[in-house]
């Protein structure tokens, strides 16, 4: 691997750091009585909103339909995920220093699996919150569940919910893309090395 491959790999690892600076996912709610909208931000290590009161407001709205209140403490993932991200960052930097092309591939594939597991986990939570409703809830609409969309928009009673990946996820995407590019661009360097060995 050439120096710039290593640099690219470094950047790929560091771009995961975006997860600590920006939310991974955002859920936007809009309703006639919420002209200013309501946003929930899902981070690698916390849950927040567009304002300090946003989560409380989500919970107030959700309690009418019997949805369990959302608290960061309820999610073990939020405690584990930061370590996983740090592991990937450190491992990525090591891979860059070692300059081993196979390790680049393994790192990328592992990261893709990690990301997929994360999304699947997120989806399961959405389903759990949306369907596991308190039978004593004041508002019960027969047959109605409130699973927010994983991606894209969906109408839930008077709310229009829109779910989109945010800048944090871009960090994962960027890491996968850059590491993939490193793997691709470095194919010749390996060939050259092999060729040299053959010639020797």
């Amino acid at each position, binding site marked *: 691997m050439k120096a710039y491959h290593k640099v690219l790999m470094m950047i790929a690892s560091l771009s995961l750091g975006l997860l600590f600076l920006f939310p991974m996912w955002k859920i936007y709610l809009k309703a006639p009585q919420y002209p200013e909208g309501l946003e929930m931000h899902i981070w690698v290590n916390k849950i927040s909103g567009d*304002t300090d*009161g946003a989560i*409380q*407001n989500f919970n*107030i709205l959700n309690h*009418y339909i019997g949805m369990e209140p959302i608290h960061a403490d309820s999610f073990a993932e939020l405690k584990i995920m930061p370590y996983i991200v740090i592991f990937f960052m450190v491992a990525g930097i090591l891979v860059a220093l070692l300059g081993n092309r196979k390790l680049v591939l393994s790192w990328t594939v592992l990261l893709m699996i990690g990301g997929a597991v994360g999304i699947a986990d997120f989806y399961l939570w959405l389903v759990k919150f949306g369907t596991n409703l308190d039978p004593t809830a*004041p508002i019960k609409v027969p047959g109605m569940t409130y699973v927010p969309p994983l991606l894209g928009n969906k109408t839930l009673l008077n709310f229009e919910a829109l779910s989109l990946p945010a800048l944090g996820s871009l960090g994962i995407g960027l890491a996968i893309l850059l590491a993939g590019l490193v793997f691709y661009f470095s194919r010749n360097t390996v060939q050259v090395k092999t060729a040299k060995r053959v010639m020797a």
Partner: protein
Amino acid sequence: MKSLFTTIKKAAPAAAFTLALAGGAVLQGCSSGPGEGSATAAGVASDAAQAVYVAPGKHDEYYSFLSGGFNGQMSVYGLPSGRLLKIIPVFTQHGENGYGYNEESKAMLNTSHGFVPWDDLHHPKLSRTNGMTDGRWLFANGNNTPRVARVDLTTFETVEIMEIPNSAGNHCSPYPTDNNEYVIAGTRFSVPLDMKGGTADVSMDEYKDKFRGSISFIKVDQEKGDMELDFQILVPGFDYDLANGGKGPSSDWVFFTTYNTERSGTLKELGASQNDRDYLAAVNWKLAAKYAAEGKAKEMPAYYYHNKMDKDTHIAKSTIKKTVRYLLPEDCPGMMYLIPAPKSPHGIDVDPSGEHMVVSGKLAATIPVFSFSKMQEAIKNKSFDGEINGIPVFKYESVLKAEVPEPGLGPLHTEFDGKGNAYTSMFVSSEIVKWKLSDFTVVDRMPVYYSVGHLMIPGGDTHTPDGKYLVAMNKITKDRYLPTGPELAHSAQLIDISGEKMRMLLDFPTVAEPHYAQAIKAEKVAPNSVKFYDLAKNKHPHAVKKESDASVTREGNVVRVKMTAIRSHMTPDNIEGVQVGDTVLFHVTNLEQDWDVPHGFAVMGANTAETLIMPGATQTLRWVPKKAGVFPFYCTDFCSALHQEMQGYIRVSPKGSPVPISFSTGKKKPAA
């Protein structure tokens, strides 16, 4: 008497003309059939509807603040729509939100006379930066029990009220200087001062010798807006009516109209109308402040209240002030002068250039315009015509610039459009008259319905008027709207002054009696408007920030309920252990952190108003149950789909009952 007769004689033809006009209008009105006012839509701009239409969901271009007069409140209207946005309680208890009723705000209405739950609010004045309105605060006067209030324009709440000692009828108030260095307040009534902070017990026959007026100089904290009475000037015993600050070259000065310079103590409608001329008092406030700072001020004992709302606890606290400093004009040369002005003047208005002082004398046939530069000359040349209490009186001609001829009848108040024009309200002839500051000639007239008092142009009293609209505040309404019994809403009218000719756009009813108004571009205020209070910053001593901290505790015969409110329940909502005769204090904290979700609280039989609690705030309702039983309480502000369910019960047992204090919401909690 001779002069009054002359005035009437002069005015008679014009008055007859006005009567003829009014008569004509009545006839016209009759022929136009039922459902219309007698003063027809004549003169209404053809595109008026479009000019004032603010489409649903759109915002007005201006906030306007109209005083409520005898309701003691301030009304906020949007312009050009004339839509009422809010009533801000200032000097009067407001059952609608508990202002002056709940434990936190009661102290705002404390005075040296005790709790005074009403006043007569006349003049709102916006705070200023560099002579322009800055949208931070609004000052307002309480006329009856002399007070000056400050409203914070981030919350639209009254945050400070200061009583003015040595004053009676705080009408000539409150006038901010160009950078709010001072807010100035003059007394309408002169009174016999006992020099101990009260009025002396003297015979009214001693008016001429014993009665004095005062002008108060209230220092304003540049950052926080907090007021402090710096000093007063004790002035001759006239009635001080209105004031206006200078601008540009005259910005060190403030001018006051006076009447009853005859110093009559009775039947003032005649007694105060004997002199041909009363005075315009000119005070160099900068020099006055300098004299006060340099030790010319004497101190006298006083006793007055200063009430301030703490922004972290939302609790008003009263402080009693025990001294006041004062200056005597006779000790302070160059500080104060008197300019003869037509008898019983009302408005004094300084044009944006600061050169012209316009006096609107309601009994005068012309509008005199005085010149600030001529006044400076006259001071230099000592063109005086005697003195009163050591205050030099100018020769009329030495300061007069011009007289606006035949303006109409009963000129009251003048504002400016910043384009070289002045607009004067004419009470008697019921019209707005536009005249030029360049040649002092009348160029346009607009009839208004009926009997206009003050008028207002946004920024029309500042350096930089925004000459687009004019609001005429009419004193008499009669048939302008559907009749509502003997008591009618007052009528304001919106006039387009952007062109050569004034154009009538809109009538809109106002609350109580606006005496004056202010307006400001919405963009200077709206972006700073607070949406809710940060619960984390709530420092109310009895706030509870989560439901699990809610409590009911007995301290002797006081039962403290620390309650939370959030959609759609109160915690606790079942309370027991209260006894007849206990004082129950419901400290309700609104846990919401969302825009426009106030909760209200009321309990059956409470001898007070509900209290309306903004998100993040804590307010307290005091209740002394008089009989045993179970009493419901509930949220009074529709907050959610389950608002009607947001209610609870409190059990009251006979005195000495063994029922212990207990409280719960949902599941029963153990007794505390």
